[in-house]
C-alpha cells in the first residue's frame, strides 16, 4: 500500500478558509535540503520540477515539519474549530 492509499482511509474535515500551516516560498526556493519532503509522514511536501509544493489538506497535524524545517519557512498553527484530521481510533 502506498502512502496515498493509506491517507485515503482517513477522515478529514478540511477548513477551506484557513490553511493552518503555511510555508514561505522564497525561503523554500533556496532551500538546500528540502528535508520536509522526507520527514512529513503524510507526504504534504513534495518537489515538483525542483519546486516545493505544499498541501495542508492531507496534514495529520503531527508537527514534524515544524521541527524538520531548520530554515524558518514553516509557520505552524492548529486548525480551528474542530476541523482538520479526525481520527477514529487514535
Amino acid at each position, binding site marked *: *500500500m502506498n*502512502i496515498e492509499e*493509506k*491517507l485515503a*482511509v*482517513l477522515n478529514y474535515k478540511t477548513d477551506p478558509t484557513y490553511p493552518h500551516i503555511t510555508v514561505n516560498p522564497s525561503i523554500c526556493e533556496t532551500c538546500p*535540503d528540502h*528535508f520536509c*519532503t*522526507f*520527514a*512529513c*509522514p*503524510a*507526504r504534504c511536501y513534495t518537489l515538483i520540477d525542483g519546486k516545493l509544493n505544499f498541501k495542508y489538506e492531507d496534514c*495529520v*497535524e*503531527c*508537527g*514534524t515539519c*515544524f*521541527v*524538520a524545517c*531548520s530554515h524558518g519557512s514553516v509557520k*505552524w*498553527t*492548529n*486548525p*480551528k*474549530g*474542530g476541523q*482538520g*484530521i*479526525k*481520527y*477514529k*481510533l*487514535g
Partner: protein
Amino acid sequence: MSEFDAIVVGAGPAGTSAASKMASSGMNVLLVERGDPPGSKNVSGGILWGKDLSKLYPDWEKTAPLERFITNKVTGFLTEDSSISIDFKTKRFERQRTGYSVLRTKLDGWLAKKAKDSGATVITGITVDGLARDGNKVIGVRQENDVITSDLVVLAEGANPRIAIDEGLRQPINDHDVAIGIKQVFKFSEQTINERFNLRNGAGFAGEYSLGFLNNGVKAGGFLYTNKDTISLGVVIDIFDLRKDNSTYSFDIMEKFASHPYIAPYIEGGQLQEYSAHLVCEGGIDYVPKLYGNGYLIAGDSAGFSFSNGMMIQGMNYAIASGIAAGETAISAKESNDYSESMLSSYEKKLSSSEVLMDMRNFRGIQNVTWSPLVHEFIPKFTEGILYNMFNETGEPKKHLFEIALENFAGSKYDRKSLVLDLYRMMRRM
C-alpha cells in the same frame, strides 16, 4: 474576579486528570479541547502502564474502555533477515495487571466524560489561540476576539505544544527533543488475534523492537500492540539521523517495518483502518521546561513527560500523574487564594517526589543510549551473526562461542574503544 478558577487547555490524559481533580473538589473549571470529539487528534504509542488512574477513578479497570491487559512483553532486534528477542510471558501480569493497550479516541472520550461528571465544563471543537496576560501574570486564554479569564491556566496541549512555544513558556523543539511516531491500525477478529499471539481471555501482547535494517545510520524503533480486535503497528523515528541521511522517507520506514519477514505474518489479512502520525517526546529531563509561573502550570507531553529506556516506553501514565499533581497544586492555590509563581512551585516539588521526575532524572541521557548506533546497529547485527553461526550446522567442526564472537566483532564497523564506552554508558544509564 475571574470567570473560572481554572482553564485547562487540552483534554488528553493530563488535561482531563487535572480538570477532574480540581472540579471534584468544587473548583469552577473549564476544559477546552480542539478535537471534536476528544481524542480525535490524538495517537497513543500503545500501552497505558501503571495504576495512576485509580487515584481518580477507583473502578477504572472495570469501566474505562481498555483493549487488552499485557501478559506478553517482547523486546527485540530486527535485522534484514532475522529477529532476535526476549519474549517474556507471565501469569503474574494476569493476576496483577500492569499495562493495558488503549486506543485514544475511546479512552480520551471516556476521560473527558469523567471530567464532565466531576463538574468541569467541557468544551470541544474549539482551538485556544493563546494566553491572556496582565503584566507577567497569566489571567486566562484568548480565543478569536475574546478573553476568557481564570485564576489559573493548565497547559496540557500534548507533544506539539503550540501555545507554550508561541508564548515563550518553553524552548522551541529541536531534533533531539522529539521523534516522529507513525502508526497503522489493522482490523481483525478477536479470535484471529487470540490465535496469532497465543492469547486468552482479554490478555494482550506488547512488542517493542529496534529496527536494525535501516540504512545510512537512520534509526527507528518499532512497536506492535494487540488491541481487542485490532493491531497497532508503529514506528518511532529519530529526526536527527533522518535529517543527516536526507534520502529516506519517514512513511517508507513504517512500510518497511510492516513488511519485515517476521512482522508481516502478524498483520497478514488485516484491513487498514487508520494511518496516523504524532510527535513523541524523547528529550528526557533536559527537554522539560519550567513547569510553572504566575497563573499557569504545564502538564503531560507539553512538559516533555515521557520516558523510554528501551525496555519500557511510557507517557500516558506520566500525563495522568502530572495532571493529578497539577490539580492538587491548584486546589491548594485556591484554598489560599494565591496563584503566584512561588505558590505554584509546589507542583514541581510534588513531581520531584513522584515517579514522573524521579524516573526522568534517574535516567537522564538515556536517549543517548536508546538512540545509539550500539542499540540500533551493532547489537542487532553482532547478535544475529553469533546466533546464526551457533545454530547453523554446516558439517564443519564447531567453534567456541568466544571465537564466533570475535569473528563477528571483526566483521562489524565498531572499534573496540567506542564499544567499551557505549556498553559502559548503557549499563550505567539503563
